[in-house]
């Protein structure tokens, strides 16, 4: 089995690296130095880390104010609270204001496992995707996380980086170049397409291997930028495969599946299956919950075969 990595390590190391070269970069945390892995940043740049205590609304507002004062704030906290608690600040202070704030939602999705639905962040993509002008990025592995942090620092404007702490393998080739708004086809395929992001991309790649054994050629697309959506990549997948399965560590409503369905329904309707989390989770660890909700290579494979049947019947 390939080595697996906690993407927070790449996140923190890259933030430190970009901060070293650009003095405008500051971090804002909500008593979350440990969970965001920013201990080293805090030691190195003690005057450039603002700990607001447990106060997410204030935290996002302070981020907007720092941006007004010429800083590039990376506002970091557990995604569930950062988005849910401060959503109006994200909408108004960041997006509507076009503030140069980088919102970093840590431990998103089901990362908190047994801590339960209060701590799961499975609505954050739907919430943030509904906000105009807010870029939404969900990196899939350490290399993409690092490049996304760098892109966020270098690109003017509000962005939501949705990060996980669930260990994932490298899914990209060494020469991979992340670009905001560009999907990556990680595996070619002609019979159907699996569109995934974040922690689900590695599972989608494994599912494609299973499908190959069934004689199905599955394309795997890493849709790491959820907003703006890479419409060309989706349109091409819809036209050339005519069957799509989306997989996300998020609610089945309003996230990646919703985005792809909204677009294909109005341009090139094709049979789809939307894999994700349909309800508040029962008690269980992250991996157990992935199994429980069918977020596994086997379940993705089954959904792909199922959508192919619909396609054939049509």
């Amino acid at each position: 089995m390939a080595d697996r990595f906690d993407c927070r390590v790449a996140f923190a190391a890259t933030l430190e690296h970009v901060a070293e070269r650009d003095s405008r970069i500051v971090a804002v945390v909500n008593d979350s130095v440990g969970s965001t892995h920013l201990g080293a940043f805090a030691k190195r740049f003690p005057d450039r880390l603002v700990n607001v205590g447990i106060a997410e609304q204030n935290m996002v507002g302070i981020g907007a104010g720092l941006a007004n004062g010429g800083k590039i704030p990376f506002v970091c906290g557990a995604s569930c609270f950062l988005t849910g608690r401060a959503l109006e600040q994200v909408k108004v202070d960041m997006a509507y204001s076009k503030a140069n704030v980088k919102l970093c939602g840590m431990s998103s999705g089901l990362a908190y496992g047994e801590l339960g639905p209060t701590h799961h962040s499975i609505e954050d993509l739907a919430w943030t995707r509904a906000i105009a002008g807010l870029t939404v990025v969900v990196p899939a592995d350490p290399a993409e996380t690092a490049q996304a942090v760098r892109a966020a620092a270098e690109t003017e404007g509000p962005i939501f980086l949705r990060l996980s702490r669930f260990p994932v393998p490298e899914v990209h080739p060494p020469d991979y170049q992340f670009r905001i708004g560009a999907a990556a086809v990680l595996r070619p395929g002609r019979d159907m397409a699996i569109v995934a992001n974040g922690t689900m991309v590695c599972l989608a790649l494994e599912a494609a291997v299973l499908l190959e054994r069934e004689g199905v050629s599955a394309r795997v697309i890493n849709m790491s930028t959820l907003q703006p959506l890479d419409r060309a990549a989706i349109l091409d997948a819809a036209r050339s495969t005519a069957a799509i399965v989306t997989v996300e560590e998020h609610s089945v409503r309003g996230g990646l599946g919703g985005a792809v369905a909204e677009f294909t329904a109005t341009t090139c309707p094709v049979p789809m299956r939307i894999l994700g989390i349909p309800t508040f989770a029962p008690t269980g660890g992250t991996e157990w919950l992935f199994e429980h909700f069918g977020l596994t290579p086997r379940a993705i494979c089954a959904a792909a075969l199922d959508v192919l049947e619909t396609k054939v019947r049509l």
Partner: protein
Amino acid sequence: MVHRARLGHPGGDLSAADILVSLYFGVLQVDASQPRSPARDRFIMSKGHCSAALYTTLALKGFFAWEELAEFMQPMSRLNGHPNRTALPGVEANTGPLGHGFPIAVGAALAAKMDHAPWRTFVLTGDGELQEGSNWEAIMAAAHYGLDNLIAIVDRNGIQQGAPTETIMRLEPLADKFRAFGWAVREVDGHDCEAMQKLFGATPFEPGRPNCAIARTTKGKGVSFIENRAEWHHRAPTDAELAAALRELGEDSHG
């Protein structure tokens, strides 16, 4: 302009007008020809619903043409019901939902501190607005970080949308609350421009502490039939009321 738009918040506009004039004409270091100059003082209008008062002040200061005030809340106008910094020069923050301006001001003041820059940050909040919890998160943080370059002005007119603040949700003893959070607090007549300019000119009130000025104001100041009447929180005057108001204010009816 509220009359023309048939929309607005004249009560709060009039209670804040003298505060805005005091700041923009004698306190704030801002240059209308360079609205995004990094060294400018920041003024954040947290009570964004009083946009008519803010727009009038910004136009007087030269951020945009006086004639544009006639477009207040008209289709496609830059003068939205609530201020939009991406559309209109001079606006520092998009406000409207209450309790947003204070945290933004704390962030701006922190940025100045990090840069050891001399510019100051002012935030004007309504009093009813202080019922939003986000303000108190910001008030706590400002004291924790010793932001003596931050000046919060509370437009203490005593009336919120529906009724007196003390009936809806008690704020008093407000000065003691700010003091208990670590702020230096002064009370001032919010319609005495000279007193306010003197006060705002001499910050920090106490070194190392953020500054709070509780400005005692009258909602609807200057117009007898609007003063202290909650129903004027969100209501436009009729033709007759406008004429009567302008007579009381000693203006001709060009606005």
